[in-house]
């Protein structure tokens, strides 16, 4: 059995309540951080842990935190990205629904480290019922003195609020999320300036994924070095994987980074193999915005080594097979699946979700969708395939935010 950090108490009934959570060691990272550590020391532990952002881009969290500007007299914000809309990804939902206090604890410890006195959890609107669970847990945390003024008798105060969105995939992109939190359309901003300098209301802001913020809890409790012992190379710690599609046991699993992909797919502890004993055709191993990996390239890397669940191993294989761990969405397709149709499904998704600011993204995704539809109807020609490639090359690298790239990649 792999080590569990975020889901270690998953089996405990009522762990979503303050009382049970606290009895099982909850909120100790806040005590440790506020009573025995400076903010710099916490950032240092996060750096040592090697933790990388779990929202998709995999950027080192400690480094991100150290970039936060600290002009005197200016408010700083921590915003939790709970927009989770990447197709095939549902781990944040699972984590928040069952472990709301773990997120709140992570938010308090992280906000303290960053010197933020107001923090927000931006959650996608469709998760309204989870927003209620979080709000109930936040009320409990206030009632027990973990939020509000002078936490643990120190001079540190923190207010934490949930903010619901209203349905727009693009609001998962951090600058679109900030626009949306300011009450505007979710159009990504041109960077720089980065949020660390000018984010929410023009103030220095850190945006982190739900899972990233939760991981800060064991890092502070056990130390960054302990965390870094798990995993392989620059992929440290554990990762939550959302497994779905044609498998026997879809669900959310916490794995140690570096688990062989084959074991994840076929062992009883995880996906339990292919549904109905069918043959594997392809896997999307990091949410929809990464290239699809055909079966023959899936289990082994280009160099013939077993493929592992890590940022590096999944990226290996050059352009043709390179995929990414991304947000940890693992969608498995069996031999009955039409890859072209699947591609059309993803492309339609991106076309639908393009915010429309950049013409290559707005128009290109629409054209790609149309061409794929034509191919699906059996009227496709070689010219159409060339045209697809041409459009994809015209989108890639030419847009404000990575949605345009993501739409081009699967092609």
């Amino acid at each position: 059995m792999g080590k569990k950090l975020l889901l270690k108490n998953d089996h405990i009934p009522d762990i979503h309540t303050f009382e049970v959570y606290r009895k099982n060691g909850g909120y100790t990272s806040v005590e440790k951080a506020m009573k025995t550590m400076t903010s710099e020391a916490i950032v240092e532990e996060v750096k040592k842990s090697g933790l990388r952002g779990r929202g998709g881009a995999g950027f080192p969290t400690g480094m991100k935190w150290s970039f936060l500007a600290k002009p005197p007299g200016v408010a700083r914000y921590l915003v939790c990205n709970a927009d989770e809309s990447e197709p095939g990804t549902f781990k944040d939902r699972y984590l928040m629904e069952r472990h709301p206090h773990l997120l709140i604890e992570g938010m308090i410890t992280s906000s303290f480290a960053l010197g933020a006195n107001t923090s927000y959890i931006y959650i996608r609107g469709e998760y309204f019922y989870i927003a209620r669970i979080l709000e109930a847990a936040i009320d409990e945390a206030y009632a027990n003195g973990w939020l509000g003024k002078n936490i643990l008798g120190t001079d540190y105060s923190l207010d934490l609020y949930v903010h619901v969105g209203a349905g727009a995939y693009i609001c998962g992109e951090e600058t679109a999320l900030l626009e949306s939190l300011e009450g505007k359309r979710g159009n990504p901003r041109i960077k720089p300036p980065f949020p660390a300098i000018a984010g929410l209301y023009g103030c220095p802001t850190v945006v982190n994924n739900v899972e990233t913020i939760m991981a800060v809890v064991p890092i502070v409790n056990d130390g960054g070095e302990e965390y870094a012992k798990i995993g392989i190379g620059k992929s440290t710690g554990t990762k939550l994987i959302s497994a779905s599609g044609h498998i026997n046991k879809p669900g959310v699993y916490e794995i140690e980074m570096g688990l062989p992909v084959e074991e994840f797919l076929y062992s009883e502890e995880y996906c339990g193999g292919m549904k109905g004993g069918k043959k594997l055709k392809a896997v999307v191993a990091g949410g929809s915005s990464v290239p699809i990996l055909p079966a023959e390239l899936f289990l082994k890397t280009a160099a013939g080594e077993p493929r592992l669940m890590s940022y590096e191993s999944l990226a290996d294989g050059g352009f043709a097979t390179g995929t990414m761990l991304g947000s940890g969405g693992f969608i498995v397709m069996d031999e009955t699946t039409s890859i072209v149709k699947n591609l059309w499904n993803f492309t339609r998704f991106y076309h639908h979700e393009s915010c429309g600011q950049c013409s290559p993204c707005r128009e290109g995704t629409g054209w790609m969708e149309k061409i794929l539809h034509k191919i699906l109807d059996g009227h496709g020609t070689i010219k159409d395939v060339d045209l697809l490639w041409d459009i994809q090359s015209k989108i890639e690298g030419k847009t404000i935010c990575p949605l345009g790239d993501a739409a081009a990649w699967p092609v």
Partner: protein
Amino acid sequence: MNNSKEIKFSEESLALVQRMIKRYPEGKQKSALIPVLHIAQAEFDGWLSSEVMDYVATLLNIQSVEAYEVASFYSMFNLKPVGKCVIEVCRTSSCWLLGAEDVIQHLEKKLNIKTGQTSSDGMFSLKSVECLGSCGTAPMMQVGADYYEKLTLEKVDGLLDRFRTDNKRKCYTDKAEASN
């Protein structure tokens, strides 16, 4: 209909709006726009007429056009009247792999409408939407606050009957049912 009654929140909703506004720094009350539009949609028949949006804008002390811009950007806001139960079926990857198209076709036949339309009795609207984070329990649909997962066609039929019997408007802001 929206315009036949006066547009004004209940006392309860007004208090909620005030609480929302307080979550953001002074002068940044525009941040409460999306949360308040949700409250408005729930209170005024499940959709946002221009009169309702004007009212929300006045409450938040912003221009009406700022409210229109936002309401039209986000897929959860309805800018036209909808049925009491808006059925939103996920059509994305994992749901698609596990039969979302059959669910949608079945619903279209049962309700005698196309996706995007509302049934003539005003009971149901059918929408297809993108991934709702329920891929491990696919296929799925959302109605109001509730997620209905691991759908089969029989399960869908049972739900339709229940919604008809309940005859209640379902909103995102409702309390979710215990288990689906």
